[in-house]
């Protein structure tokens, strides 16, 4: 019995030592996240590099520390609805409206837009190049049996894509030509390029990745393809643990003139055209919805 006791004590001692090591680590880092703001956002804002430019400015200005969690809009809103995020930067208007109607958010403000584009292999086997209506182009892709690569992750892009299928009355679920990656925009574009398929992408991510892709923009400019980003502050009444002041500060920052000016020129030097168009203060209707 003595033996077991000894072992047990050694175990306890070792475990305590381990906890001390971990504790030291926590103490060392405690200085930084005092006023952390959890920003749940879409992959497109991170993959384009926009947040890498904006967040350091915000942190310097306000002293908040931003924890950017880049997921799809669907997951971002799920995090907001559980009070696990303080502020959302998302692009899935219909789902956002439901989010607000359910009382999960306090204020929802328009930040910027760009647009979705239908991209595909330059050879364009379905022959949709230059078509004016996204719904018609989708019908033609379906009719030709060419493979369409979907995000399949409930992101803003995926939701938009479903809208277009539905608007065109196309049956897509379970069809042989309809494939899903379940990945972010960048990776889905890469898969699409590799397999020479069609896909729906936001222009920002497409432009940022264009050089390695070999996919062409085939359809653009249709009203249904508008891609609008909003910031939503998570409801502090529902989730008292959320950092509401921090979230609000970030939302204010996103719609401030300084930030909007940065958004206006972001990407011009690198890609020749802006990736996003600032819209703060405008009404959604003014964008032509």
């Amino acid at each position, binding site marked *: 019995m003595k033996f077991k006791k000894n072992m047990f004590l050694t175990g306890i001692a070792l475990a305590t030592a381990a906890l001390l090591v971990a504790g030291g680590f926590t103490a060392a880092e405690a200085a930084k996240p005092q006023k952390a703001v*959890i920003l749940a956002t879409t992959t497109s804002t991170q993959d384009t590099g926009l947040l890498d430019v904006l967040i350091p400015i915000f942190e310097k200005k306000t002293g908040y520390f931003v924890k950017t969690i880049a997921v799809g809009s669907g997951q971002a809103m799920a995090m907001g609805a559980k009070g696990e995020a303080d502020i959302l930067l998302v692009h899935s208007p219909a789902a956002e409206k439901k989010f607000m109607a359910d009382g999960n958010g306090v204020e929802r403000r328009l930040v910027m837009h760009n647009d979705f584009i239908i991209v595909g292999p330059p050879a364009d086997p379905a022959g949709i190049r230059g078509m004016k209506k996204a719904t018609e182009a989708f019908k033609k892709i379906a009719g030709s049996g060419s493979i369409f690569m979907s995000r399949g992750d409930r992101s803003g892009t995926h939701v938009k894509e479903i809208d277009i299928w539905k608007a065109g009355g196309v049956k897509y679920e379970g069809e042989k030509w309809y494939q899903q990656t379940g990945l972010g925009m960048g990776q889905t574009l890469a898969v699409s390029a590799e397999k020479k398929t069609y896909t729906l992408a936001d222009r920002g991510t497409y432009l940022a990745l264009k050089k390695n892709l070999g996919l062409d923009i085939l359809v653009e400019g249709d009203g249904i393809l508008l891609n609008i980003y909003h910031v939503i502050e998570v409801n502090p009444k529902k989730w008292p643990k959320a950092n509401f002041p921090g979230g609000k500060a970030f939302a204010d920052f996103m719609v401030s003139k300084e930030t909007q000016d940065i958004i206006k020129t972001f990407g011009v030097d690198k890609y020749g055209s802006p990736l996003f168009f600032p819209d703060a203060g405008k009404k959604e209707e003014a964008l032509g919805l």
Partner: protein
Amino acid sequence: MDIILEGIRQAFILLFTFDREVLGVTWFSLKVSGTATLISLFLGMSVGTVVALTQFPGRRIVVSLINTGMGLPPVVVGLFVTIFLWRNGPFGFLEILYTPSAMIIAQAVIATPIVMGISLAAIQQLPRKLRLQILALGATRLQMVLVLIREAKLALLAAVMAGFGGVISEVGASIMVGGNIMGYTRVLTTATVMETSRGNFDIAIALSIILLLFAYLINLVLTYVQQRERPR
């Protein structure tokens, strides 16, 4: 092929120009995975040794659970640690989700069964007579355990390497509980995933090469320690 060569070139540029971001990420990866491995050593080796040296009802079940744990998928660990650490979850009061501490916890959970399983096998495979002999020479139980650990050194160092290798290379848990926050919880693997999805394949390859390089260097040191004695 060009892209791989370009990646290798990038890796060397990033390393030898002491690119601050890359060095920071590399150092942080080593720190997180090193700490997690250390914790897993304490927990894994102590429990592994106890289980190896004792008899108790249900022992085989315990051993089979430990062995299954050696293959614990990092994403599963990541998911559960995330749910536990949510602000409104059972350990939300700790407020450590999306921090390095959360990553260390997740990685320790991944590495501990690996170290435990290998330690258990290492200690148990020592001849039973050795134990009796040590005790006959008048050693206390604790001294006996220490001698056994020394005897099993080769295999125990392999446990260290397996545990460290398991966590430095995992991405699923780190990205979920750490969030890949720039300058805070970004490690080499999560940075590689991000750069890949940004289409910066050259940088992604460079980061992978740096990861492999450091994993190799650490294992090289451990191997030297392990192989100090001449082969028997």
